[in-house]
């Protein structure tokens, strides 16, 4: 069995809540059939108090085997490097000390969510008084709690399953790949995110694609149009497969009528502009699609705007289709 030890610190617990939404099979069955078990998980295990502390101490001293250390939430190093913003309950030692000790014994260390990967929202207040950081990154700078040179027992850096929150599939696929064959460096992107989900853009599979093609843009929340030009959507730049995997059945941010805020990227929490507004220079969005020459984008946008069909133009600024697709009387050719 692949034994997983899971701890939470400076975060909201939402990555665990999201994981519980795994489907189609119940999480516990899915994991146990794949040969994965939780040695301890703060929200799911039976052991409490002294039983839990004994288990953690044994693991941190190398007396109890485990394979994967999953950390959810940012590492709070403050105030003044003391770690007192999070002392483990019942124990009184900083969580940051526990994570350092446990990481030394883990074959793999997984940062679950953008807080433990890069610092996330915990690191977002001015001057970062919490001294929050990720396991191996502080924002987009390598380092973090464990240091840029850290390698787990299997020789890998921290695997950043980034997202705010993570999709349950990103965690399950990562754990199941570990159980099956492990990760090698080529399985990760330049920010150490698993390519399992980070080799796509949120834009891929976006149901607003027709509006994007014609630059038929939404102007206000609930409009059906493309969210990129006015409402701050970063789906053409953000790495994740949200519109291919989809969330809670048929959902995603764009499907929910609101922009992608690029929550899998370091620093997403401090975009330097209001989240729901697209920053522009001379009327043109600053954040153009990844991999696309700017001049071509501007030229194509101008052309496609002038070619926008009435249906797409009018539906873009309504919250339900007001013009239906035409029916051809001659049959489809």
């Amino acid at each position: 069995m692949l034994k997983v030890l899971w701890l939470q610190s400076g975060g909201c617990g939402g990555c665990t809540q999201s994981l519980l939404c795994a489907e189609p099979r119940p999480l516990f069955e899915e994991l146990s059939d794949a040969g994965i078990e939780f040695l301890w998980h703060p929200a799911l295990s039976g052991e409490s108090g002294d039983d839990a502390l004994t288990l953690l101490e044994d693991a941190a001293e190398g007396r109890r085997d485990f394979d994967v250390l999953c950390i959810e939430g940012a590492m709070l190093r403050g105030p003044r490097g003391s770690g007192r913003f999070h002392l483990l309950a019942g124990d009184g030692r900083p969580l940051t000390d526990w994570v350092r000790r446990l990481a030394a014994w883990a074959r793999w260390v997984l940062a679950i969510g953008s807080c433990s990967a890069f610092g996330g929202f915990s690191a977002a207040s001015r001057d970062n008084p919490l001294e929050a950081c990720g396991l191996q990154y502080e924002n987009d700078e390598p380092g973090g709690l464990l240091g840029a040179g850290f390698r787990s027992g299997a020789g890998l850096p921290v695997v950043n399953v980034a997202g705010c929150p993570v999709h349950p599939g990103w965690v399950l696929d990562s754990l199941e790949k570990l159980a099956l064959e492990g990760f090698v460096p080529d399985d990760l992107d330049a920010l150490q995110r698993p390519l399992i989900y980070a080799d796509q853009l949120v834009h891929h599979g976006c149901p607003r694609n027709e509006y994007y093609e014609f630059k038929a843009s939404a102007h206000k929340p609930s409009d059906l149009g493309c969210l990129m030009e006015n409402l701050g959507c970063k789906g053409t730049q953000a790495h994740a497969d949200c519109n291919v995997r989809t969330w809670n059945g048929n959902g995603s941010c764009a499907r929910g009528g609101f922009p992608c805020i690029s929550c899998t990227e370091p620093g997403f929490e401090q975009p330097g502009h209001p989240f729901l507004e697209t920053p522009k220079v001379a009327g043109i969005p600053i954040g153009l699609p990844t991999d696309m020459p700017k001049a071509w984008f501007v030229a194509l946008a101008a052309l496609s705007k002038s070619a926008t069909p009435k249906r797409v133009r009018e539906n873009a600024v309504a919250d339900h289709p007001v013009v239906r697709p035409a029916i051809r009387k001659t049959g489809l050719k």
Partner: protein
Amino acid sequence: MRRIVVGPFNRVEGDLEVSLDLEDGLVVAARVNSPLFRGFEQILVGRAPQDALVVVPRICGICSVSQSAAAAAALADAASLAPTPNGRLAQHLIQATENLADHLTHFYLFFMPDFARSAYAGRPWFGAVAERFAAGRGQAGNEALPARTAFLRLMGFLAGKWPHTLALQPGGSSRAISAAERIRMLAILRQFRTFLESRLFGDDLTAVAGLESEVDLLAWAQGRAGDFPAFLAAAHDLGLERIGKASERFLSYGAYDSFAPGFWQPGQAVARFDPGQVAEDSRHAWLADSGLLPPAAGRTVVDVDKPDAYTWCKAPRYGGQVAEVGALARQVVDGHPLARDYVARHGASVTARVVARLLEIARVLPMMEAWINALVPGESFCAQGTLPEEAQGVGLVEAARGGLGHWLSVKRGRIECYQIVAPTTWNFSPRDGDGQPGPLELALVGLPAGEGALPTVQHVVRSFDPCMVCTVH
């Protein structure tokens, strides 16, 4: 006297430590410590007001939507904007989906596994309950999780995703529901109802919602197959209806335009809820102390070396008094006879809190069906408005765990101040400037604890369904 420190409490949301003073094996005083600090109020200051809709859900992964709803309500208040009828129904549906999913998670994953502890090995119900509810192994989890997941598919339609949606807007919702989706959502509710009626209750929801007293409830549960009846059998055997009494004052902000707001105390009629009575005190928190302040005037400034401080949690008070919030408070304030009867007989208790949560599931699911029926696809889901450059707003909602308030002030188009009073901040509050203990601190006094004691303390703590990450926002 001897002091013991209990923690970590797992199967609560976030990290929690309780320090207990014992005499002859019984608790004489309890102090509740929230050992994690988050700093979200500072994260909000200086940002564009609408950014609150992105930031606040990330306070909490389990009450994420409630945080969104409170921010949307505060922004709507500041902009003097009312949601459209569809928008209002969508907001109710999104909030109810989270609240009911949270009640289910609490019952199956957080609360019931404590009955599988070996300390209860001799009880007549132990074998069956331990097999069904053991943490991570029991079959109940494998049935409840898919039911929860299927139910949360409502969020895929209504909110894009859960947790951390941006769909809730001051004017309603960013996600209009189509005619086809309305039909699909009703099907999801029928599927969830089937799980509840066949597994959780062993009876139809109307029958459960119609129970009027403890006597009725116990008679109804006698010999009935179902997880709620199984809980009642164990809880009654252990006398948990007499354990966990706290402040005996209940506060509810009112929910879904259906559950009434108010403040209840023994022997008095429900008092009208007055937001002006809410104030917070930081006497025993590692935060700068400025006495009892209304949230709109409150500040959160770290003071890590403060003497006599023992938590990161402030102490909210209503008219200076300690108050309990949550499903029991909502149902007592709203006047449901079953909740009122439990409280009249025994005061608040472990059993009453769990009963109130499950009662609420039985009451709210039919409301959700009615709200979906009332949606009019094609009509607006989101009213538009403009937020003034200078404005104040208050957003008060009911999360699964109780009343949640956001107090916002906007100056020169930016957030000047943002204060949050979360449900578990009420329930797990420390002592205030007058030395009054918080609800959990009261509820633990007199209980057996320490080596060899039954896990009664664990039941009482979890009966509040604490959310520590919200508490220490």
